[in-house]
Protein backbone atom coordinates (compact mmCIF):
# COMPACT_ATOMS: atom_id res chain seq x y z
CA UNK A 1 0.00 0.00 0.00
CA UNK A 2 1.35 3.42 -0.95
CA UNK A 3 1.67 6.40 1.35
CA UNK A 4 0.44 9.97 1.16
CA UNK A 5 2.85 12.90 1.13
CA UNK A 6 2.31 13.45 4.88
CA UNK A 7 2.91 9.75 5.64
CA UNK A 8 6.06 9.75 3.48
CA UNK A 9 7.54 12.72 5.38
CA UNK A 10 6.78 11.15 8.76
CA UNK A 11 8.20 7.79 7.64
CA UNK A 12 11.42 9.47 6.57
CA UNK A 13 11.65 11.54 9.77
CA UNK A 14 11.12 8.47 11.95
CA UNK A 15 13.57 6.29 10.05
CA UNK A 16 10.90 3.84 8.91
CA UNK A 17 10.22 2.42 5.47
CA UNK A 18 6.49 2.63 6.00
CA UNK A 19 4.03 4.24 8.44
CA UNK A 20 0.27 3.82 8.64
CA UNK A 21 -2.26 6.40 9.84
CA UNK A 22 -2.92 6.00 13.56
CA UNK A 23 0.62 4.84 14.37
CA UNK A 24 2.55 6.80 17.00
CA UNK A 25 6.09 7.48 15.81
CA UNK A 26 9.04 9.44 17.15
CA UNK A 27 10.33 11.87 14.57
CA UNK A 28 13.54 13.86 14.25
CA UNK A 29 12.71 17.54 14.08
CA UNK A 30 14.23 19.68 11.31
CA UNK A 31 13.06 23.07 12.62
CA UNK A 32 11.48 24.25 15.87
CA UNK A 33 9.79 27.66 15.76
CA UNK A 34 8.72 29.77 18.71
CA UNK A 35 7.71 33.36 19.47
CA UNK A 36 7.27 35.85 22.30
CA UNK A 37 4.06 34.40 23.76
CA UNK A 38 5.08 30.75 23.97
CA UNK A 39 8.88 31.07 23.86
CA UNK A 40 9.39 32.26 27.46
CA UNK A 41 7.33 29.46 29.06
CA UNK A 42 9.01 26.94 26.72
CA UNK A 43 12.42 28.18 27.86
CA UNK A 44 11.23 27.94 31.48
CA UNK A 45 10.24 24.29 31.07
CA UNK A 46 13.47 23.52 29.15
CA UNK A 47 15.61 24.87 31.99
CA UNK A 48 13.56 23.15 34.67
CA UNK A 49 13.76 19.77 32.93
CA UNK A 50 17.24 19.83 31.40
CA UNK A 51 19.06 22.14 33.80
CA UNK A 52 19.83 25.87 34.02
CA UNK A 53 23.00 25.45 31.92
CA UNK A 54 21.53 23.05 29.35
CA UNK A 55 22.19 23.74 25.68
CA UNK A 56 19.55 23.36 22.97
CA UNK A 57 19.88 20.24 20.84
CA UNK A 58 20.88 22.09 17.67
CA UNK A 59 21.06 25.87 17.59
CA UNK A 60 20.86 25.90 13.78
CA UNK A 61 17.44 24.26 13.93
CA UNK A 62 15.81 26.66 16.38
CA UNK A 63 14.06 29.74 15.01
CA UNK A 64 12.76 32.43 17.37
CA UNK A 65 10.63 35.16 15.83
CA UNK A 66 8.98 37.60 18.26
CA UNK A 67 5.76 38.80 16.59
CA UNK A 68 2.73 38.80 18.89
CA UNK A 69 2.97 41.62 21.44
CA UNK A 70 5.64 43.94 20.13
CA UNK A 71 4.39 47.51 19.89
CA UNK A 72 2.81 47.72 23.33
CA UNK A 73 3.62 49.37 26.64
CA UNK A 74 2.56 46.22 28.51
CA UNK A 75 5.44 45.56 30.91
CA UNK A 76 4.92 41.81 31.03
CA UNK A 77 4.89 41.58 27.23
CA UNK A 78 8.12 43.58 27.04
CA UNK A 79 9.66 41.42 29.74
CA UNK A 80 8.92 38.38 27.58
CA UNK A 81 10.95 39.85 24.70
CA UNK A 82 13.84 40.35 27.15
CA UNK A 83 13.65 36.66 28.09
CA UNK A 84 13.96 35.67 24.41
CA UNK A 85 16.84 38.10 23.90
CA UNK A 86 18.76 36.73 26.88
CA UNK A 87 18.18 33.13 25.82
CA UNK A 88 19.34 33.87 22.26
CA UNK A 89 22.54 35.46 23.59
CA UNK A 90 23.19 32.72 26.12
CA UNK A 91 22.66 29.95 23.53
CA UNK A 92 24.35 31.91 20.72
CA UNK A 93 21.34 31.40 18.43
CA UNK A 94 21.84 32.36 14.77
CA UNK A 95 18.11 32.51 13.98
CA UNK A 96 16.78 35.03 16.48
CA UNK A 97 15.09 38.08 14.96
CA UNK A 98 15.21 40.75 17.62
CA UNK A 99 12.70 43.53 18.10
CA UNK A 100 14.08 47.01 17.47
CA UNK A 101 16.80 45.84 15.08
CA UNK A 102 16.82 45.65 11.29
CA UNK A 103 16.51 41.87 11.70
CA UNK A 104 12.98 42.25 13.14
CA UNK A 105 10.63 40.22 10.96
CA UNK A 106 7.04 40.33 12.18
CA UNK A 107 4.55 37.46 11.88
CA UNK A 108 6.53 34.22 12.10
CA UNK A 109 4.48 32.20 9.59
CA UNK A 110 5.00 34.80 6.89
CA UNK A 111 8.66 35.29 7.85
CA UNK A 112 9.60 31.58 7.84
CA UNK A 113 9.37 31.25 4.02
CA UNK A 114 11.18 34.58 3.52
CA UNK A 115 14.13 33.17 5.45
CA UNK A 116 14.13 29.77 3.72
CA UNK A 117 12.96 27.68 6.70
CA UNK A 118 9.99 26.13 4.89
CA UNK A 119 11.71 23.31 3.03
CA UNK A 120 9.90 20.48 1.20
CA UNK A 121 10.08 17.09 2.92
CA UNK A 122 11.17 18.53 6.28
CA UNK A 123 9.42 18.38 9.67
CA UNK A 124 8.59 21.70 11.34
CA UNK A 125 7.01 22.08 14.75
CA UNK A 126 6.04 25.48 16.13
CA UNK A 127 4.46 26.78 19.32
CA UNK A 128 1.67 28.36 17.34
CA UNK A 129 -1.35 26.75 15.76
CA UNK A 130 -0.83 28.49 12.40
CA UNK A 131 2.54 26.74 11.99
CA UNK A 132 0.52 24.60 9.55
CA UNK A 133 0.98 27.43 7.01
CA UNK A 134 4.34 25.97 5.99
CA UNK A 135 2.63 22.87 4.59
CA UNK A 136 2.17 24.94 1.42
CA UNK A 137 5.83 24.10 0.73
CA UNK A 138 5.37 20.33 1.02
CA UNK A 139 6.69 20.38 4.59
CA UNK A 140 5.07 18.56 7.52
CA UNK A 141 4.27 21.50 9.79
CA UNK A 142 2.06 21.60 12.86
CA UNK A 143 1.47 23.50 16.09
CA UNK A 144 2.43 22.23 19.52
CA UNK A 145 2.43 23.44 23.13
CA UNK A 146 5.25 24.67 25.34
CA UNK A 147 5.94 21.32 27.00
CA UNK A 148 6.35 19.52 23.68
CA UNK A 149 8.52 22.38 22.41
CA UNK A 150 10.72 22.18 25.52
CA UNK A 151 11.04 18.43 24.94
CA UNK A 152 12.27 19.14 21.39
CA UNK A 153 14.68 21.83 22.64
CA UNK A 154 16.42 19.22 24.75
CA UNK A 155 16.13 16.11 22.55
CA UNK A 156 15.39 17.13 18.94
CA UNK A 157 12.58 14.58 18.89
CA UNK A 158 8.83 14.38 19.41
CA UNK A 159 6.16 11.71 19.20
CA UNK A 160 3.45 12.25 16.65
CA UNK A 161 0.43 10.26 15.60
CA UNK A 162 0.38 9.74 11.84
CA UNK A 163 -2.77 11.44 10.55
CA UNK A 164 -5.10 10.21 7.85
CA UNK A 165 -5.26 12.56 4.87
CA UNK A 166 -8.34 14.31 3.49
CA UNK A 167 -7.87 15.50 -0.09
CA UNK A 168 -9.41 18.69 -1.46
CA UNK A 169 -9.15 19.06 -5.21
CA UNK A 170 -9.86 22.28 -7.11
CA UNK A 171 -10.38 21.93 -10.86
CA UNK A 172 -10.11 24.74 -13.33
CA UNK A 173 -8.91 28.30 -13.23
CA UNK A 174 -9.67 30.54 -10.25
CA UNK A 175 -12.28 33.12 -11.33
CA UNK A 176 -11.55 36.86 -11.19
CA UNK A 177 -12.09 38.50 -7.78
CA UNK A 178 -12.02 35.12 -6.02
CA UNK A 179 -9.03 34.41 -3.78
CA UNK A 180 -7.60 31.40 -1.94
CA UNK A 181 -9.31 32.81 1.19
CA UNK A 182 -12.70 32.22 -0.42
CA UNK A 183 -11.75 28.61 -1.18
CA UNK A 184 -10.65 27.78 2.35
CA UNK A 185 -13.69 29.52 3.92
CA UNK A 186 -15.86 27.39 1.61
CA UNK A 187 -14.09 24.20 2.76
CA UNK A 188 -14.27 25.06 6.47
CA UNK A 189 -17.94 25.93 6.09
CA UNK A 190 -18.54 22.60 4.36
CA UNK A 191 -16.74 20.35 6.87
CA UNK A 192 -17.02 22.39 10.10
CA UNK A 193 -14.51 23.62 12.68
CA UNK A 194 -13.81 20.02 13.68
CA UNK A 195 -14.25 18.51 10.22
CA UNK A 196 -10.58 17.61 9.88
CA UNK A 197 -9.70 16.91 13.53
CA UNK A 198 -6.58 14.76 13.86
CA UNK A 199 -6.20 14.65 10.06
CA UNK A 200 -4.01 16.11 7.35
CA UNK A 201 -5.70 18.28 4.72
CA UNK A 202 -4.09 18.08 1.30
CA UNK A 203 -4.90 20.60 -1.43
CA UNK A 204 -4.47 19.51 -5.02
CA UNK A 205 -5.68 19.91 -8.58
CA UNK A 206 -4.71 22.37 -11.29
CA UNK A 207 -6.68 25.12 -9.52
CA UNK A 208 -4.36 24.85 -6.52
CA UNK A 209 -1.13 24.25 -8.42
CA UNK A 210 -1.76 27.40 -10.47
CA UNK A 211 -1.80 29.50 -7.28
CA UNK A 212 1.39 31.29 -6.30
CA UNK A 213 3.07 30.42 -2.98
CA UNK A 214 1.19 33.11 -1.06
CA UNK A 215 -2.17 31.84 -2.31
CA UNK A 216 -1.21 28.29 -1.35
CA UNK A 217 -0.16 29.53 2.11
CA UNK A 218 -3.63 31.00 2.65
CA UNK A 219 -5.10 27.51 2.13
CA UNK A 220 -2.74 25.64 4.45
CA UNK A 221 -2.77 28.47 7.03
CA UNK A 222 -6.41 27.87 7.91
CA UNK A 223 -6.49 24.07 8.16
CA UNK A 224 -6.33 24.51 11.93
CA UNK A 225 -9.68 26.30 11.69
CA UNK A 226 -11.11 22.96 10.53
CA UNK A 227 -9.25 21.15 13.33
CA UNK A 228 -6.63 19.80 10.92
CA UNK A 229 -3.25 18.65 12.17
CA UNK A 230 -1.40 19.82 9.10
CA UNK A 231 -2.16 21.13 5.64
CA UNK A 232 -0.04 20.11 2.72
CA UNK A 233 0.50 20.71 -0.98
CA UNK A 234 2.82 18.65 -3.18
CA UNK A 235 5.92 20.65 -4.04
CA UNK A 236 6.42 21.63 -7.69
CA UNK A 237 8.44 24.07 -9.79
CA UNK A 238 6.70 27.05 -8.14
CA UNK A 239 7.74 25.71 -4.71
CA UNK A 240 11.33 24.96 -5.67
CA UNK A 241 11.83 28.32 -7.38
CA UNK A 242 10.59 30.10 -4.25
CA UNK A 243 12.63 28.04 -1.78
CA UNK A 244 15.83 27.93 -3.86
CA UNK A 245 15.78 31.73 -4.17
CA UNK A 246 15.99 31.93 -0.37
CA UNK A 247 18.17 29.06 0.84
CA UNK A 248 20.82 26.68 -0.44
CA UNK A 249 20.15 24.27 2.43
CA UNK A 250 19.66 20.67 1.25
CA UNK A 251 16.20 19.12 1.38
CA UNK A 252 14.53 15.97 0.11
CA UNK A 253 11.05 16.63 -1.30
CA UNK A 254 8.38 13.96 -0.85
CA UNK A 255 5.39 13.16 -3.04
CA UNK A 256 2.20 11.10 -2.84
CA UNK A 257 2.52 7.52 -3.98
CA UNK A 258 0.15 6.78 -6.88
CA UNK A 259 -1.65 4.19 -4.74
CA UNK A 260 -1.77 6.32 -1.56
CA UNK A 261 -4.89 5.81 0.54
CA UNK A 262 -6.97 8.81 1.57
CA UNK A 263 -9.57 9.26 4.30
CA UNK A 264 -11.75 11.08 1.77
CA UNK A 265 -11.60 13.23 -1.30
CA UNK A 266 -13.69 16.27 -2.29
CA UNK A 267 -13.66 17.90 -5.67
CA UNK A 268 -14.57 21.55 -6.23
CA UNK A 269 -15.05 23.27 -9.58
CA UNK A 270 -13.34 26.64 -9.51
CA UNK A 271 -16.03 28.15 -11.70
CA UNK A 272 -18.58 27.55 -8.91
CA UNK A 273 -16.57 29.40 -6.24
CA UNK A 274 -18.05 32.59 -4.79
CA UNK A 275 -16.72 35.36 -2.53
CA UNK A 276 -17.30 33.94 0.95
CA UNK A 277 -17.49 35.15 4.53
CA UNK A 278 -17.46 33.39 7.88
CA UNK A 279 -20.10 35.13 10.00
CA UNK A 280 -19.65 35.73 13.74
CA UNK A 281 -18.67 33.80 15.84
CA UNK A 282 -17.11 30.82 14.14
CA UNK A 283 -14.91 30.22 11.07
CA UNK A 284 -17.36 27.58 9.82
CA UNK A 285 -20.38 29.91 9.95
CA UNK A 286 -20.23 30.35 6.21
CA UNK A 287 -22.25 32.50 3.86
CA UNK A 288 -21.69 33.81 0.37
CA UNK A 289 -21.06 37.54 0.29
CA UNK A 290 -24.30 37.82 -1.69
CA UNK A 291 -26.22 36.39 1.26
CA UNK A 292 -24.90 38.97 3.73
CA UNK A 293 -24.50 41.89 1.32
CA UNK A 294 -25.38 45.20 2.98
CA UNK A 295 -24.54 44.14 6.55
CA UNK A 296 -23.43 47.28 8.39
CA UNK A 297 -19.80 47.46 9.55
CA UNK A 298 -17.80 49.77 11.78
CA UNK A 299 -14.30 48.57 10.92
CA UNK A 300 -12.18 46.76 8.36
CA UNK A 301 -8.87 45.00 9.02
CA UNK A 302 -6.32 43.70 6.53
CA UNK A 303 -3.43 41.81 8.09
CA UNK A 304 -2.11 38.62 9.79
CA UNK A 305 -0.39 35.46 8.56
CA UNK A 306 -3.59 34.65 6.68
CA UNK A 307 -4.34 37.95 4.95
CA UNK A 308 -1.37 40.27 5.45
CA UNK A 309 0.96 39.03 2.70
CA UNK A 310 2.07 41.17 -0.23
CA UNK A 311 -0.46 39.64 -2.65
CA UNK A 312 -3.22 40.37 -0.12
CA UNK A 313 -2.30 44.05 -0.12
CA UNK A 314 -2.00 44.14 -3.90
CA UNK A 315 -5.54 42.74 -4.04
CA UNK A 316 -6.84 45.26 -1.50
CA UNK A 317 -5.11 48.13 -3.31
CA UNK A 318 -6.67 47.15 -6.64
CA UNK A 319 -10.06 47.77 -5.05
CA UNK A 320 -9.14 50.77 -2.87
CA UNK A 321 -7.25 52.76 -5.52
CA UNK A 322 -8.99 56.05 -6.10
CA UNK A 323 -11.56 55.50 -3.34
CA UNK A 324 -11.96 56.55 0.28
CA UNK A 325 -12.89 54.14 3.05
CA UNK A 326 -16.24 54.55 4.81
CA UNK A 327 -15.15 52.88 8.06
CA UNK A 328 -11.90 52.79 10.06
CA UNK A 329 -9.61 50.54 8.06
CA UNK A 330 -6.42 49.06 9.46
CA UNK A 331 -3.54 47.84 7.29
CA UNK A 332 -1.10 45.56 9.13
CA UNK A 333 1.66 44.06 6.96
CA UNK A 334 2.69 40.63 8.20
CA UNK A 335 6.43 41.25 7.94
CA UNK A 336 8.96 44.07 7.73
CA UNK A 337 9.77 43.03 4.17
CA UNK A 338 6.11 43.23 3.15
CA UNK A 339 5.81 46.62 4.87
CA UNK A 340 8.77 47.87 2.80
CA UNK A 341 7.24 46.39 -0.34
CA UNK A 342 4.12 48.52 0.22
CA UNK A 343 6.37 51.47 -0.63
CA UNK A 344 7.91 49.87 -3.73
CA UNK A 345 5.07 47.86 -5.28
CA UNK A 346 2.84 50.01 -7.44
CA UNK A 347 -0.39 49.82 -9.38
CA UNK A 348 -0.41 52.12 -12.43
CA UNK A 349 2.46 54.10 -10.99
CA UNK A 350 0.98 54.60 -7.51
CA UNK A 351 2.55 52.68 -4.61
CA UNK A 352 0.36 50.50 -2.42
CA UNK A 353 1.35 52.68 0.54
CA UNK A 354 0.14 55.80 -1.22
CA UNK A 355 -3.08 54.09 -2.35
CA UNK A 356 -3.85 53.10 1.25
CA UNK A 357 -2.96 56.55 2.59
CA UNK A 358 -5.09 58.30 0.00
CA UNK A 359 -7.96 55.96 0.87
CA UNK A 360 -7.72 57.01 4.52
CA UNK A 361 -6.43 53.70 5.90
CA UNK A 362 -4.30 53.49 9.04
CA UNK A 363 -1.05 51.63 8.37
CA UNK A 364 0.64 49.81 11.25
CA UNK A 365 3.91 48.07 12.03
CA UNK A 366 4.51 44.45 11.06
CA UNK A 367 3.17 42.09 13.75
CA UNK A 368 0.23 39.88 14.71
CA UNK A 369 -1.46 43.02 16.10
CA UNK A 370 -5.23 42.77 16.55
CA UNK A 371 -5.71 39.40 14.83
CA UNK A 372 -5.71 37.93 18.32
CA UNK A 373 -6.72 40.97 20.32
CA UNK A 374 -3.64 41.29 22.48
CA UNK A 375 -2.90 43.96 25.11
CA UNK A 376 -5.38 46.86 25.30
CA UNK A 377 -3.10 49.25 23.36
CA UNK A 378 -2.71 46.90 20.37
CA UNK A 379 -3.07 48.56 16.94
CA UNK A 380 -6.55 47.93 15.53
CA UNK A 381 -7.82 45.98 18.58
CA UNK A 382 -11.62 45.77 18.89
CA UNK A 383 -12.20 47.35 22.29
CA UNK A 384 -15.98 47.58 22.24
CA UNK A 385 -18.99 46.70 20.13
CA UNK A 386 -17.26 46.98 16.74
CA UNK A 387 -18.50 45.01 13.78
CA UNK A 388 -15.37 44.24 11.81
CA UNK A 389 -14.69 42.57 8.47
CA UNK A 390 -11.23 41.07 8.50
CA UNK A 391 -8.77 39.10 6.38
CA UNK A 392 -7.63 37.20 9.50
CA UNK A 393 -8.33 33.61 10.44
CA UNK A 394 -10.54 33.37 13.54
CA UNK A 395 -13.76 35.02 14.66
CA UNK A 396 -14.56 33.17 17.86
CA UNK A 397 -16.08 35.39 20.60
CA UNK A 398 -13.55 37.99 21.71
CA UNK A 399 -10.83 36.80 19.35
CA UNK A 400 -9.93 40.33 18.18
CA UNK A 401 -10.45 41.93 21.60
CA UNK A 402 -13.79 42.62 23.24
CA UNK A 403 -16.35 39.85 23.77
CA UNK A 404 -18.92 42.39 22.57
CA UNK A 405 -17.35 42.74 19.12
CA UNK A 406 -18.33 40.72 16.06
CA UNK A 407 -16.01 39.65 13.25
CA UNK A 408 -16.71 38.59 9.66
CA UNK A 409 -13.80 36.80 7.95
CA UNK A 410 -13.34 37.43 4.23
CA UNK A 411 -10.82 37.82 1.40
CA UNK A 412 -8.80 41.02 0.91
CA UNK A 413 -10.94 41.87 -2.15
CA UNK A 414 -14.14 41.59 -0.13
CA UNK A 415 -12.72 43.41 2.90
CA UNK A 416 -11.47 46.29 0.74
CA UNK A 417 -14.76 46.64 -1.14
CA UNK A 418 -16.68 46.51 2.14
CA UNK A 419 -14.35 49.09 3.73
CA UNK A 420 -15.24 51.61 1.01
CA UNK A 421 -19.00 51.17 1.34
CA UNK A 422 -19.19 50.59 5.11
CA UNK A 423 -21.36 47.55 4.49
CA UNK A 424 -20.46 44.05 3.34
CA UNK A 425 -19.89 44.36 -0.39
CA UNK A 426 -19.19 41.88 -3.15
CA UNK A 427 -15.95 42.99 -4.82
CA UNK A 428 -17.54 42.21 -8.19
CA UNK A 429 -20.43 44.59 -7.48
CA UNK A 430 -17.95 47.27 -6.52
CA UNK A 431 -15.96 46.78 -9.71
CA UNK A 432 -19.13 46.57 -11.73
CA UNK A 433 -18.35 43.28 -13.43
CA UNK A 434 -21.15 41.00 -14.51
CA UNK A 435 -21.18 37.52 -12.99
Amino acid sequence: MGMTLTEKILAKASGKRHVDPGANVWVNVDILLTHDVCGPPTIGIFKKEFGADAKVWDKNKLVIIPDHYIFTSDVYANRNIDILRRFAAEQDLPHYYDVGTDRYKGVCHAAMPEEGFTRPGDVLFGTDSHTCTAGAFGQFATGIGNTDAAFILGTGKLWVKVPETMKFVFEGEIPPWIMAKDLILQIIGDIGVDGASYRAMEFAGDGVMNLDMEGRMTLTNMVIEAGGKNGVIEPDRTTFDYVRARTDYAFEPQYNDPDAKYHSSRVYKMKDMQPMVAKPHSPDNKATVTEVRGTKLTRAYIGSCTGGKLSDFVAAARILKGHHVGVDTYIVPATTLIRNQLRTEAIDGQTLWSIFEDAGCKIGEASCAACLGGPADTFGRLNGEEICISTTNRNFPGRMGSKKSAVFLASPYTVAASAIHGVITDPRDHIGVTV
Partner: protein
Amino acid sequence: MNKTIRGKVFVLGDDIDTDQIIPAQHLVYSLEKPDEKRMYGRYALSGVPEAQSGLPKGGVPFTPDHAYESEYGVIVAGKNFGCGSSREHAPFALQVAGCKAVIAPTYARIFYRNAVDGGFLVPYESFSDVSKEFRTGDEVEIDTELNLVANITTGVSFPLRPLGDVADIVEAGGIFAYARKHNMF
Protein backbone atom coordinates in the same frame (compact mmCIF):
# COMPACT_ATOMS: atom_id res chain seq x y z
CA MET B 1 -3.47 9.18 39.17
CA ASN B 2 -6.07 9.01 41.96
CA LYS B 3 -8.74 6.35 41.70
CA THR B 4 -11.42 9.02 41.77
CA ILE B 5 -11.69 12.66 40.80
CA ARG B 6 -14.48 14.41 42.63
CA GLY B 7 -15.78 17.95 42.47
CA LYS B 8 -18.44 20.40 41.43
CA VAL B 9 -19.10 20.53 37.72
CA PHE B 10 -19.00 23.53 35.39
CA VAL B 11 -20.99 23.04 32.18
CA LEU B 12 -20.14 24.56 28.79
CA GLY B 13 -21.36 24.24 25.19
CA ASP B 14 -19.70 23.30 21.88
CA ASP B 15 -16.46 24.62 20.34
CA ILE B 16 -15.05 26.33 23.42
CA ASP B 17 -11.90 27.80 21.88
CA THR B 18 -8.66 28.75 23.58
CA ASP B 19 -9.45 32.48 23.40
CA GLN B 20 -12.50 31.78 25.56
CA ILE B 21 -10.46 29.57 27.91
CA ILE B 22 -7.78 32.23 28.38
CA PRO B 23 -8.12 35.48 26.37
CA ALA B 24 -4.95 36.48 24.52
CA GLN B 25 -4.31 39.68 26.47
CA HIS B 26 -3.58 37.57 29.57
CA LEU B 27 -0.89 35.43 27.93
CA VAL B 28 1.81 37.81 29.14
CA TYR B 29 2.10 36.56 32.72
CA SER B 30 4.87 34.25 33.86
CA LEU B 31 3.79 30.62 34.25
CA GLU B 32 6.35 30.16 37.02
CA LYS B 33 6.26 33.18 39.34
CA PRO B 34 3.48 32.51 41.88
CA ASP B 35 2.14 36.10 41.98
CA GLU B 36 1.78 36.13 38.19
CA LYS B 37 0.86 32.47 37.69
CA ARG B 38 -2.29 32.87 39.79
CA MET B 39 -3.60 35.36 37.20
CA TYR B 40 -4.22 32.40 34.89
CA GLY B 41 -6.63 31.02 37.48
CA ARG B 42 -8.30 34.37 37.81
CA TYR B 43 -8.96 34.74 34.08
CA ALA B 44 -9.64 31.08 33.22
CA LEU B 45 -12.74 30.83 31.00
CA SER B 46 -13.23 34.61 31.28
CA GLY B 47 -13.63 34.81 27.49
CA VAL B 48 -16.81 32.73 27.46
CA PRO B 49 -19.83 34.90 26.56
CA GLU B 50 -21.85 35.44 29.74
CA ALA B 51 -24.96 33.60 28.57
CA GLN B 52 -22.87 30.51 27.77
CA SER B 53 -20.89 30.47 31.01
CA GLY B 54 -22.12 27.83 33.49
CA LEU B 55 -24.95 26.10 31.66
CA PRO B 56 -27.85 25.54 31.60
CA LYS B 57 -28.61 28.84 33.28
CA GLY B 58 -25.57 30.83 32.16
CA GLY B 59 -24.24 33.95 33.79
CA VAL B 60 -22.01 31.97 36.15
CA PRO B 61 -18.33 32.98 36.21
CA PHE B 62 -15.92 30.03 36.39
CA THR B 63 -13.68 31.99 38.76
CA PRO B 64 -15.52 34.62 40.84
CA ASP B 65 -14.48 38.28 40.45
CA HIS B 66 -11.24 39.06 42.28
CA ALA B 67 -10.67 35.38 43.13
CA TYR B 68 -7.80 33.26 41.79
CA GLU B 69 -9.36 29.84 42.09
CA SER B 70 -12.58 28.26 40.92
CA GLU B 71 -14.90 26.14 43.03
CA TYR B 72 -15.44 23.85 40.00
CA GLY B 73 -13.08 20.89 39.78
CA VAL B 74 -14.55 19.24 36.68
CA ILE B 75 -15.73 20.70 33.36
CA VAL B 76 -18.32 18.99 31.18
CA ALA B 77 -18.58 20.44 27.68
CA GLY B 78 -19.84 19.83 24.16
CA LYS B 79 -17.84 18.89 21.09
CA ASN B 80 -14.42 20.16 19.95
CA PHE B 81 -13.30 21.50 23.32
CA GLY B 82 -10.12 23.58 23.19
CA CYS B 83 -10.18 24.45 19.50
CA GLY B 84 -8.19 27.40 18.17
CA SER B 85 -4.67 28.27 19.17
CA SER B 86 -1.88 26.03 20.43
CA ARG B 87 -1.44 28.03 23.65
CA GLU B 88 -0.54 25.64 26.44
CA HIS B 89 -1.68 28.45 28.73
CA ALA B 90 -5.23 27.07 28.16
CA PRO B 91 -5.03 23.72 30.01
CA PHE B 92 -2.55 25.41 32.37
CA ALA B 93 -5.07 28.14 33.28
CA LEU B 94 -7.76 25.55 33.97
CA GLN B 95 -5.35 23.64 36.20
CA VAL B 96 -4.29 26.78 38.08
CA ALA B 97 -7.97 27.56 38.69
CA GLY B 98 -8.35 24.10 40.23
CA CYS B 99 -9.82 22.04 37.39
CA LYS B 100 -8.68 18.41 37.42
CA ALA B 101 -10.57 16.90 34.51
CA VAL B 102 -12.61 17.84 31.45
CA ILE B 103 -15.28 15.62 29.91
CA ALA B 104 -16.24 16.27 26.29
CA PRO B 105 -17.21 14.07 23.33
CA THR B 106 -14.31 15.42 21.23
CA TYR B 107 -11.30 17.71 21.62
CA ALA B 108 -9.20 19.85 19.37
CA ARG B 109 -5.99 17.85 19.06
CA ILE B 110 -3.47 20.41 20.27
CA PHE B 111 -5.44 21.15 23.45
CA TYR B 112 -5.78 17.42 24.13
CA ARG B 113 -2.10 16.84 23.57
CA ASN B 114 -1.09 19.82 25.71
CA ALA B 115 -3.35 18.70 28.57
CA VAL B 116 -1.73 15.25 28.52
CA ASP B 117 1.90 16.07 27.76
CA GLY B 118 1.98 18.89 30.31
CA GLY B 119 0.15 16.76 32.88
CA PHE B 120 -2.26 19.64 33.59
CA LEU B 121 -5.60 17.84 33.67
CA VAL B 122 -7.20 14.68 32.34
CA PRO B 123 -9.16 15.16 29.09
CA TYR B 124 -11.81 12.43 29.14
CA GLU B 125 -13.86 11.66 26.06
CA SER B 126 -17.51 10.78 26.59
CA PHE B 127 -19.16 8.46 24.06
CA SER B 128 -21.72 11.10 23.21
CA ASP B 129 -22.38 14.69 24.28
CA VAL B 130 -23.47 14.36 27.94
CA SER B 131 -23.31 18.09 28.74
CA LYS B 132 -27.12 18.32 28.90
CA GLU B 133 -27.13 15.71 31.68
CA PHE B 134 -25.27 17.99 34.07
CA ARG B 135 -26.13 21.31 35.67
CA THR B 136 -23.40 23.69 36.76
CA GLY B 137 -22.88 23.07 40.48
CA ASP B 138 -23.84 19.38 40.41
CA GLU B 139 -21.47 17.17 42.39
CA VAL B 140 -19.67 14.64 40.17
CA GLU B 141 -17.26 11.78 40.63
CA ILE B 142 -15.04 10.25 37.96
CA ASP B 143 -13.92 6.67 38.55
CA THR B 144 -10.57 6.59 36.74
CA GLU B 145 -10.32 2.81 36.81
CA LEU B 146 -13.82 1.99 35.62
CA ASN B 147 -13.90 5.01 33.24
CA LEU B 148 -17.24 6.27 34.51
CA VAL B 149 -18.54 9.66 35.50
CA ALA B 150 -21.35 9.79 38.05
CA ASN B 151 -23.58 12.78 38.59
CA ILE B 152 -23.91 12.40 42.37
CA THR B 153 -26.60 15.08 42.48
CA THR B 154 -28.91 13.29 40.04
CA GLY B 155 -27.68 9.71 40.53
CA VAL B 156 -27.01 9.09 36.83
CA SER B 157 -23.72 7.69 35.46
CA PHE B 158 -22.12 7.79 32.04
CA PRO B 159 -19.28 5.73 30.59
CA LEU B 160 -16.08 7.44 29.41
CA ARG B 161 -13.72 6.25 26.70
CA PRO B 162 -10.59 4.58 28.07
CA LEU B 163 -7.56 6.90 27.75
CA GLY B 164 -5.90 4.39 25.41
CA ASP B 165 -2.51 5.39 23.98
CA VAL B 166 -2.05 8.33 26.33
CA ALA B 167 -2.93 6.50 29.57
CA ASP B 168 0.75 5.90 30.39
CA ILE B 169 1.64 9.58 29.93
CA VAL B 170 -1.32 10.67 32.07
CA GLU B 171 -0.36 8.12 34.69
CA ALA B 172 3.26 9.31 34.70
CA GLY B 173 2.11 12.95 35.01
CA GLY B 174 3.31 14.29 31.65
CA ILE B 175 5.70 13.64 28.80
CA PHE B 176 8.89 14.43 30.76
CA ALA B 177 8.03 12.09 33.61
CA TYR B 178 7.02 9.46 31.07
CA ALA B 179 10.23 9.82 29.06
CA ARG B 180 12.38 9.56 32.20
CA LYS B 181 10.49 6.47 33.32
CA HIS B 182 11.31 4.87 29.96
CA ASN B 183 14.96 6.03 30.01
CA MET B 184 14.47 8.08 26.88
CA PHE B 185 17.00 10.65 28.05
